[in-house]
């Protein structure tokens, strides 16, 4: 009986799935066009899956093995099942292979079941809770129905009742695994995920046969010249089709939620929920069936959307609240963790672009900062002619006078900030000690545009960028060095699209090189315990984790690492304009970060970013000192003859010198 039943079952499920798949594809195609090389993407997909995606998943060994067994077993079993039971090709090795595949899948699904017994908070519940059972139903039923095919059981074992039961169980399994895949069940992730890998908007992220993928973190420029297009994303259909596809790939594993600083701070953002809301939006409906952690303090079930309805309501509620979008620090921790390679930050900035450019609704101090940038080319609204006041006594070589230098020192808007001026002065002391040929732009420098861009003001960003590029094009230099990772990122990764291609180094990278070249000499470190905070825009955005640590090592410092460090570093809360939009939460992100510092027992946290310095220093109840790497290096420099001040307690005046 099964012989008759199984092909019918299998092919009708496949047919239904095909219908579902077409419907799903049509949902994605509501999005704006995006130029993707479809064939090449499909060809690259297996590699992207097996290498790049696996690289992320493999950070959790158990889960990785579980997935290999379950997914690998399923893919093999599904194909073999069609051959064996659909076309009746049971002879030879195929049946045995099918047995092996379904057995493997069954073992995998046991592990899935185990994880679902006591799932961590980040995992969504709902339909996902039945998935292990479905996996077992599928693998077990396939296994059993295949036993007769290889002769381990008689062809007519059991009764017709058993056959019906088996068929029913298989139908359940097939329903979940194949029908559900195309019609929006948990298994949708396999279908959408595979295509997302193939048609990803940042193909350069992925490895190729030639080598590893590149970090692709720069935001993509918005075409401001198209008068008909909405600026940014107002409604789900304003995303590009492959972004919509990407949202659909989400497995709701909540790794993003677990690392999101805004979520941890109790601000109304949860990256996973945001992606799910976009999924709701593209199909239309409400978020009532979402079964994961909500946005803190925002109950589920009150928001709804449609593909062509606004994501953020001008008044009242739509798909998400504006505060959700403005809570993001653009730290990229979610993107870094996402096993499905979803680009949350791109999506958030796309939606911010609409709010800022079309509605002028940048909250908090956002509008003021943007006005300042427009009027004065710096976010603080300071007199552009005052940019170099801090360096009046340093006689810095100006590009406008010397025309060329080995290094163009990009100062950043920290030039207006007394705290950062200390870092800059320290850095200049270091450059001079190493005899570096450098020059600055002086009053010709403008804000890099980082904040404007993250706040969605692409127009101001592009205006600043184009003028900076025009200035830079007047001079000759080998590379740009900056102590500001935000400038570093923008100059290095985002100006290219607008015609400015530069070699940019963070000062820690440059100092590490100077040290390796024997151009700097350090006194041994005599201070206490030190930890290092990876700035997001240096680490995750630009992959520079080693140079700062190498510099600290050269100073004789053994870094007491925080649990969240390196690519998993926790944001200081200062990125993406978050301190400007200032969405309230239950606690402050920098407080949590200084808590991380405290856990290491460090007396000092070394940083390499003016923003991080400001945020971490702003934490009131912390004893740990916050110092930029440049300051530590400047303090340790051995220069010329030591001072001959007599007296045992007066050999060093640590603070005064570099501040003056």
């Amino acid at each position, binding site marked *: 009986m099964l012989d008759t039943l199984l092909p019918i079952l299998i092919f009708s499920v496949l047919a239904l799935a095909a219908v579902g798949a077409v419907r799903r594809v049509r949902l994605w195609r509501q999005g704006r066009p995006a130029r993707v090389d479809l064939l090449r993407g499909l060809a690259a997909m297996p590699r992207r899956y097996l290498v790049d995606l696996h690289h992320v998943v493999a950070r959790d060994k158990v889960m990785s093995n579980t997935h290999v067994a379950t997914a690998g077993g399923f893919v093999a079993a599904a194909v073999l099942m069609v051959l064996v039971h659909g076309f009746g090709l049971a002879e030879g090795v195929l049946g045995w292979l099918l047995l092996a595949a379904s057995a493997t899948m069954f073992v995998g699904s046991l592990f899935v079941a185990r994880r679902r017994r006591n799932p961590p908070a980040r995992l969504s519940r709902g339909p996902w809770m039945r998935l292990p059972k479905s996996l077992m139903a599928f693998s077990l039923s396939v296994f059993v129905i295949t036993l007769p095919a290889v002769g381990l059981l008689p062809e007519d074992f059991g009764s017709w009742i058993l056959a019906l039961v088996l068929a029913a169980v298989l139908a359940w399994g097939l329903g979940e695994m194949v029908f559900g895949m195309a019609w929006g069940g948990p298994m949708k992730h396999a279908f959408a995920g595979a295509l997302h890998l193939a048609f990803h908007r940042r193909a350069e992220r992925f490895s190729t046969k030639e080598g590893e993928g590149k970090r692709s973190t720069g935001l993509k420029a918005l075409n401001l010249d198209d008068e008909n297009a909405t600026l940014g994303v107002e409604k789900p259909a304003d995303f590009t089709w492959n972004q919509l596809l990407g949202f659909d790939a989400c497995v709701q594993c909540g790794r993003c939620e677990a690392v999101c600083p805004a979520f941890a701070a109790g601000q109304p953002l949860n990256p996973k929920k945001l992606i799910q809301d976009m999924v709701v939006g593209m199909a239309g409906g409400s978020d009532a069936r979402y079964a994961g952690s909500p946005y803190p303090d925002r109950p589920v079930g009150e928001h709804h959307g449609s593909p062509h309805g606004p994501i953020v309501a001008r008044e009242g509620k739509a798909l998400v609240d504006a505060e959700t979008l403005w809570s993001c620090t653009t730290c990229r921790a979610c993107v870094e963790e996402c096993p499905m390679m979803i680009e949350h930050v791109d999506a958030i900035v796309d939606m911010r672009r609409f709010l800022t450019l079309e509605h002028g609704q940048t909250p908090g101090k956002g509008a003021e900062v943007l006005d300042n940038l427009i009027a004065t080319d710096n976010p*603080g609204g*300071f007199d552009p002619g*005052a940019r170099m*006041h*801090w360096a*009046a*006594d*340093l006689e810095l070589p100006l590009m406008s006078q010397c025309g060329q230098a080995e290094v163009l020192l990009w100062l950043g808007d920290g030039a*207006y*900030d*007394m*705290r950062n*001026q*200390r870092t800059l002065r320290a850095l200049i002391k270091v450059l001079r000690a190493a005899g570096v040929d450098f020059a600055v732009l002086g009053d010709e420098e403008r804000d890099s545009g980082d904040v404007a861009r993250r706040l969605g003001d692409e127009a101001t960003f592009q205006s600043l960028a184009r003028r900076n590029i025009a200035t830079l094009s007047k001079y000759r230099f080998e590379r740009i060095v900056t102590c500001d990772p935000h400038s570093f990122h923008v100059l290095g990764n985002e100006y290219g699209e607008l015609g400015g291609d530069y070699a940019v180094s963070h000062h820690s990278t440059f100092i590490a090189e100077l040290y390796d070249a024997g151009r700097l000499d350090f006194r041994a470190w*005599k201070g206490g315990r030190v930890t290092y905070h990876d700035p997001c825009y240096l680490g995750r955005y630009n992959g520079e984790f080693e140079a700062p640590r190498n510099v600290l090592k050269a100073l004789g410092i053994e870094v007491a690492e925080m649990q969240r460090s390196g690519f998993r570093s926790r944001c200081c809360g200062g990125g993406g304009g978050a301190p400007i939009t200032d969405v309230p939460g239950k606690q402050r992100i920098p407080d949590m970060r200084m808590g991380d510092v405290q856990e290491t027992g460090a007396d000092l946290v070394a940083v390499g970013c003016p923003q991080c310095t400001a945020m971490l220093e702003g934490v009131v109840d912390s004893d740990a000192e916050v110092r930029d790497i440049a300051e530590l290096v400047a303090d340790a420099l051995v220069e010329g003859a030591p001072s001959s*001040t*007599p*007296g*045992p*307690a*007066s*050999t*060093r*005046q*640590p*603070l*005064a*010198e570099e*501040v*003056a």
Partner: protein
Amino acid sequence: MAFDAMFQPIQIGNLTIRNRVVSTAHAEVHATDGGMTTERYVKYYEEKAKGGCGLCICGGSSIVSIDSPQAWWSSVNLSTDRIIPHFQNLADAVHKHGGKIMIQITHMGRRSRWDGFDWPNLVSPSGIREPVHRSTCKTIEEEDIWRIVGDFAQAARRAKEGGLDGVELSAVHQHLMDQFWSPRVNKRTDQWGGSFENRMRFGMEVLKAVREEVGDDFVVGMRICGDEFHPDGLSHEDMKQIAAYYDATGQVDFFGVVGSGCDTHDTLANVIPNMSYPPEPFLHLAAGIKEVVKVPVIHAQNIKDPNQANRILEGGHVDLVGMTRAHIADPHLITKIKMDQVDRIKQCVGANYCIDRQYQGLDVLCIQNAATSREYLGMPHEIEVTEGPKRRVVVVGGGPGGMEAARVAAERGHEVTLFEAAEQLGGQITIAAKAPQRDQIAGITRWYQLELARLGVDQRLGTRADEATILDLRPDVVVLATGGRPFLEQHEEWGYDEDPDKSLVVSTWDVLEGRVEPGKNVLIYDTICEFSGVSAADYLADKGAKVEIVTDDIKPGSAVGGTTFPTYYRSLYEKEVIMSSDLGLHKVYREGESLVAVLENEYTGAQEERVVDQVVVENGVRPDEALYYALKPQSRNKGQVDLEALYAIQPQPCLSEEGDGLLLFRLGDCTSPRNTHAAIYDALRLCKDF
């Protein structure tokens, strides 16, 4: 950006000054070896430059000619090429830290002393005696004038060759140049006196000669007065005319403006306004000069607070602010602003200990910062954490010495407990601050309160420490700074009794602290002649008492410094306080409801009586030694301070010796009564090596 007006660079001549804050010219009394800028001098200015000061104008009243004596005030001597290499050291030290340095050059004319060294004939336009220095002088001759004009040019050359950034011609404080300007002292009828142009001639010749010598690429400024405050002197309008006249030459790169002349004791007090003055009392005079000149104007006088300085600059009243005493109190003032540690700035309180020492020919020191001008000895402005053992330090007494000891020990990283019997810190500073116009001295305590809190010192206020409490804490080091009490029991005839109901006399502390009601008719007997006697007189008169203050010394208040006694006298005379001299307090007895004070003339022995209702005696402080002698036998070092180590600014040897038992030190008035600076200096030099 906070304080951005202050941190806006400015161009003076061809020179860029990194911010708007100046340490203006003042006599440091540090130039040794015949007026050379030697190590102490260099380190003093290097510290300011390191601390961020934009421009230092050093060498107040540095002389250009040998008949303007420098030795009395150890001022800088630019009359010889010998100074040039010393200037190079000075310039390098300041430039190294991004600062700029100029020097004031002058001929002081009659404003000096002749009775020593080369026994010069002082010179002045019309030979009129100067009252503050009691100096007579000759009427200057044409030959002297041209010699001195040439000396100015040579001095400027030496400054330039020494690498300094400029010179400031002093035409303030009644030096020779403004002696020519002022009709009060210039009575000449030749081309050097009479008409405006004639009175201006000497200054103009100096300016021309200097500019010709140094060329355009060197700053030449002029320090002038804003108003001499004498009816027969130069008025503000006169000074505006003078400033505009020199400014029109285009040869002057900046003007420094000081309100008030200073050839009398009373006007002198205006020049360096003490704590009785309001903030920036003479800013309007500098602003008036700024109205008529095209070049930057600097003004200093009671500008001590960064917010105040920024407000003045934002208002555009002047271009640069002088924060000179502010830098004496805290040479790292600018650094602390930039470090966002404005609360950590040790702010000048206007005690004028610095300038009052200077007028006595003593080196300039700060009442509250013992490291200032002792940088060359290795006295630290920033205390480093010890690399040696962490000690448990108990400090007893929260007066200036005890507060400094606690601060320094805590900065060294030790665990510090500070006992103070009173409910608040401050010791005698708290008492001193009760007098009218003296409240600002409490700023000394305020800074310590903030610092001790920041450093986490365990402060046991309202707790009188005894032997047992101290030993309970098992201290490694005990520092006693228990001070003393008024010494009223010296003469039995005064009728002092520990029981206030029986005592015929009370102390100035009783009065100022409000422990006794002010009498209606009060005799104050002040044998000390420092602050407390006149403070008590001012306080009582302020409360409506009729007060006579009597001393056996020269005059009440005569040991109060030169810039401070005038403001006391203004207040006391206005309140009709009678000041009597040369009378000792022989005896006090009660007669009915009244008290009779028998006074005896110091020189004739004649006695006279005063019938009053309150007799206040100021006879100094008697050290409180009880706790010291209780602890002394139990201490490892028997309470002794190694004087050789102390004076050489070296660690006390006992600190590094092994042994059981605590180390005991005492400092401040509980050893012998000296002053605030002495207590703080002892605490710093002793504790900096704990």
